[in-house]
């Protein structure tokens, strides 16, 4: 876990866990599936200076409703403002902070790694251990599909480093609550 000293607003030096859970919040929003909604949400974050780690958006079981999973960094005060400001957007139906809710998070990464005859089998072993899939093979490169939470993908990436990661494309976190708990349309 990396720790960086950063300046807080009152000038004191504070240790912020950049990769930890303390100031990282996973929000799930139901929004109208309309043109411009993504711009409204992302515009809110940029206008008010909130930091987005990732934002993933897609359809839901209801045709005209989309779901956004937003991972945001900030203290309690910022989180409260983010939730309230998101809720104020006319096209946002429901916002929920998953911190206190048992939930599952998944991130999907497509990773292109240097690999040839000599080290491909070693790479395949690592993929097996992480339960990831090789989905494309060429003479000197493979593409791996990796699914998991952020920590697993991070650990997997560290193992791939010696091979040489050529490029990567990720979805960002999507999340859903465990059990029968659902995010309802009621505000």
């Amino acid at each position, binding site marked *: 876990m990396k720790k960086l000293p950063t300046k807080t607003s009152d000038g004191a030096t504070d240790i912020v866990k950049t990769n930890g859970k303390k100031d990282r919040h996973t929000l799930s929003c139901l929004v109208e599936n309309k*043109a411009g909604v993504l711009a409204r949400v992302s515009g809110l974050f940029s*206008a008010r200076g909130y930091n987005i780690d990732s934002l993933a958006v897609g359809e839901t079981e209801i045709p005209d409703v989309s779901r956004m999973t937003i991972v945001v960094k900030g203290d309690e005060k910022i989180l409260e403002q983010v939730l309230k400001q998101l*809720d*104020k957007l*006319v096209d946002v*139906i429901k916002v929920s902070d998953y911190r206190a809710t048992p939930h599952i998070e998944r991130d999907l990464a497509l990773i292109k790694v240097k690999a040839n005859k000599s080290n491909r089998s070693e790479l395949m072993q690592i993929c097996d251990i992480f339960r990831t899939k090789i989905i494309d093979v060429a003479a000197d490169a493979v593409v791996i599909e990796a699914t998991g939470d952020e920590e697993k993908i991070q650990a997997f990436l560290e193992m791939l480093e010696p091979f040489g990661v050529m490029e990567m494309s990720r979805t960002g976190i999507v999340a859903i609550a465990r059990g029968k708990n659902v995010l309802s349309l009621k505000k």
Partner: protein
Amino acid sequence: MELTGAQIVVGSLVREGVKVAFGIPGGQALPLYDALYDAPFRLVLTRHEQGASHMADGYARASGKVGVCFATSGPGATNLITGLANAYMDSIPVVAITGQVRTGVIGSDAFQEADATGCTRSVTKHNFLVKDVRDLARIIREAFHIAATGRPGPVHIDVPVDVQRAKTPFVWPATVRIRSYRPISAPSDDDVRRAAELIRRAQRPLLYVGGGVISSGASDALRRVAEKTDTPVANTLMANGAIPFDHPLALGPLGMHGKYVSNMALQHCDLLISCGARFDDRVTGDLKKFSPKSKKIHFDIDPACINKNVPVDVGVLGDVRRSLEKLLPLVSRKSHPVWRREIKAWDKKHPLSYRLGDGLVKPQHVIKTLHRLTRGEALVVTGVGQHQMWSMQWYQAKRPRHFLSSGGLGTMGFGFPAAIGAKLARPDRTVVSIEGDGSFQMTMTEMAIAVREHIPIVVILLNNYYLGMVRQWQQLFYNKRFSSTALTVKGANAADGKEPTPGRDPYVPDFMKWAAAYGIEGYRLTRNEQVEGALRKALAAKSPVLVEAIIPRDENVFPMIPAGMGVENIIVDMA
């Protein structure tokens, strides 16, 4: 019967009870303006779209109804932006309708195309791009609903020209139902009870009231709560008139240029009851030193405003009027003689003051005289700058919706067009536009509208030949380096690039000649003795009139709490 989209716009506005709208036509608004030619409401042609947006805003502030403005695509739409941002910051209900290039060419960089909804997104409460004429009536209905309910604000509707031309049956939706928009209006019983409990225990309570009291119509409820609990009332710029200026519990304005007594009361109260105010930095100054001894209650319609800048002990979410009405029977009758005596002593120590002198006209004297002649009952609209702060201090209004000013955005150029909108909302009122020479020149072209439409407005122009508020800050905090604040002609010094000297170099324009060019009466005042006579004549006029008072170049606004500081840093005057 099938109507065109443009006719549906007009029909929908009629259904919404629109009596007057402001705007300028253009290529992509031609069908709309063709339909407006037959509209049963008044259509005011402005000289600039910014003027239209401020007029709609001023109309809304004065009337409590939704203001409406139109513009064409591209530059028409972008010219509205300042006015929409202004309305957004001050929570004013406005609906702006713009033309747009036809749907088939959107995104092709067509002539006079701008991504209008992209531009207005961050300065409106909500916006719509209408792609199907069948959605138009519903969208207009929703726009008015969103603009006027919850925390009010501007809503923009962009209507491509082919949608304006397309035909469909006009069906006015019976109700509005937006599943993602349900503003809370009724406060919770628990929250109000907790507020009442804090009020019961307070020895030094203070009501800090903002624009929400005006927009929710809470003045009467506020006065009754204040009287029953013997709680003094300090107002923000936005809440001038929320309580009558001559009420014994009215302290007057607080904040950076507020009264000493209001700021001292804020600092020493043991309970701060904020009503429809948002703890703006111009009120709080240094947050760490803000009202340190008090418990805090915050009544507000906007959940995001509660605990945003200042943590509060009790937040009451809901319409301020409804909250105060609910609170009234729960509070017991109280009296705070010690607290009231302390307050009286602060007021005696540093009342608002100025020295009349024997030189040029004193701006405070002009406004004080206006207040006396109109008994505080005129509808006063200000621009932004020193004249705005002098107006706030010396024109404490008798009634709500009678002092209109750009609070949050601080938009120079707001005042005069907003005064035109206000006069159309309240033709029964004497409307006075108090301006500074910098602010007025930003939108004074709209005088053509006042003349064209026979709208009698008294413009009081306080002319100090400077962008005075910036000059004041340069004097106090930037070593008197008056960079780009003199408004006079570059004179003898022009060749070496130095700033002009207002005492020596001439002023443009000559406002008396300018008034003559518009065919209106103009009076130029250079001595205090001329003020009352000229104001009497101007207030009796049945057409627009300009009163220009030449005021001292270096007159400053005091008291002043410098930005980001606490009340102990208050500068009472230069001496």
